[in-house]
């Protein structure tokens, strides 16, 4: 009887945790901060915009409109990995201004991997600066680090996508212009907020609720029998 009570109480606790996860999953997501920007991209060049850390609870909705077909990538780098890359860039280019490392660590890594012997990219050195933003460098970088690509749709002039990363990741948007003429690109990002990491929470809830019910039923039945006996 004591074992039934113990397992029953463990079961009801597990059931309540599962129900709490279900409630967290049911709370709808809401829209937050919105930003829009528009900029030209030179032929066979790309631009990157580091947004911020998004998580299974904080996602984003992106819309892109351009005057010609472009490639859009959403990249997600873990905070630990990003820290490692910053250290790597600092070691590769000890004299580089910290602001460049903060703003463009991913293009710097791609550039360093494509041209390991080259001097660090610098605004005063247009040649290396242009080399850094070359789509060939981007393609090579993405081939080397395919794990950071979260969204890679086929080329188009209109895009719209909603994303909640599976982990807390630093999210970046890359827009590449593969054509031989400049394009004008307008991008809109809207932050989305959800109470919990939807996918993981529902998986855990689906697992915990049946386990909790299975453990609690014998105890609840024996409790009812005991009550009706007295």
């Amino acid at each position, binding site marked *: 009887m*004591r074992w039934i009570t113990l397992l029953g*109480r463990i079961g*009801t*606790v597990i*059931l*309540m*945790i599962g*129900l*709490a*996860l279900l*409630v*967290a999953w049911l*709370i709808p997501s809401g829209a937050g901060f919105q930003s829009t920007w528009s900029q030209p991209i030179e032929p066979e060049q790309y631009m990157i915009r580091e947004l*911020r*850390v*998004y*998580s*299974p*609870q*904080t996602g984003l909705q992106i819309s892109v409109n351009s005057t010609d077909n472009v490639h859009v990538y959403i990249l997600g780098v*873990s*905070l*630990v990995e*990003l*820290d490692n890359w910053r250290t790597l860039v600092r070691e590769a280019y000890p004299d580089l201004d910290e602001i460049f490392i903060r703003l463009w660590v991913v293009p710097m890594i791609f550039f360093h991997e494509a041209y390991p012997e080259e001097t660090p990219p610098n605004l005063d050195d247009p040649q290396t600066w242009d080399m850094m933003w070359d789509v060939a460098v981007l393609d090579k970088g993405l081939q080397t680090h395919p794990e950071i690509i979260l969204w890679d749709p086929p080329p188009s002039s209109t895009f719209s996508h909603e994303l909640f990363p599976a*982990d*807390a990741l*630093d999210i970046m948007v890359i827009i590449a212009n593969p054509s031989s003429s400049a394009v004008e690109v307008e991008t809109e990002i809207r*932050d989305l*907020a959800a*109470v*919990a*990491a939807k996918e*993981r*929470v529902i998986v*855990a809830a689906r697992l915990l609720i049946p386990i909790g019910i299975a453990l609690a039923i014998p105890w609840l039945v024996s409790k009812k029998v005991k009550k009706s006996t007295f």
Partner: protein
Amino acid sequence: MRKGRPFLEIFTYALDEDYRFPILEIFAFLFALGTFVFVDLGAYSGQTGEALAYSLVTTLCGFPLLFIFVVLILKNVAYGLGSDLDRGVIQTLFSYPLKRRYILTARLLSGLGIALLLFFGIQIFGLFLLAPDVILTYPSTVFLTYAAQLCSPVLLLAGLVLFFTLRLKRGGLALVIGVILFLAGLIVSGFVTSIAYGTGSDLSLKIWAVINPNSALQIYYYDMGASLFASESWVPSFSEVLLYLGAGYLIVAALFVIGYVYFDRRLEI
């Protein structure tokens, strides 16, 4: 009769009293829901490494959840033990062939141990769901932050309330004192920083860090980048943080020893 059986009898009695259905279930629901509702992983943009792990854990066991947890602990220690003293149940427990300190241990194991198991079990489970890479990469930071949060206010208050309950023999009053002390701690922590900035002396911060080691850990990680407003005054080294944590646990241990000694020798029943 072996010593274990009466101990288990008292432990089972304490469990029944502390967690009558559905008290345990309600707290489990609140802890689980709160863990997911109060944390915003996106709020830590720019933070990396150990500072990020510290911020995450601190937010996870932040004010609303910690307060609910402290209420559960105080209810068990003050109200549970207090009502045993008040209703004379403790005299029945003393009739068991068991030393008084074991009776208190069984009571605290139920009131404190099970509550801690529930709270930290759900917290670690939540962390694994929300940010598995953080907990797997920085387990020592996560453990250290929980150890600091646990020391003060949780265990410190539990030790104080245990003594007040035994001394006053009235759980209700001890419970009120515990809640007041918890809120006073929150107010004092704000004052201490102002005093340090106002006087230009670190003494108040250091004294507070002995009582509340989490403040030393907080300054240490804020300086590392957990906050945009890095501390301009005292920043302890990591070994100093460990020293303050050790001192905090010594105070907690001393409070519990006083409680045990009082229960063993001075409690007149």
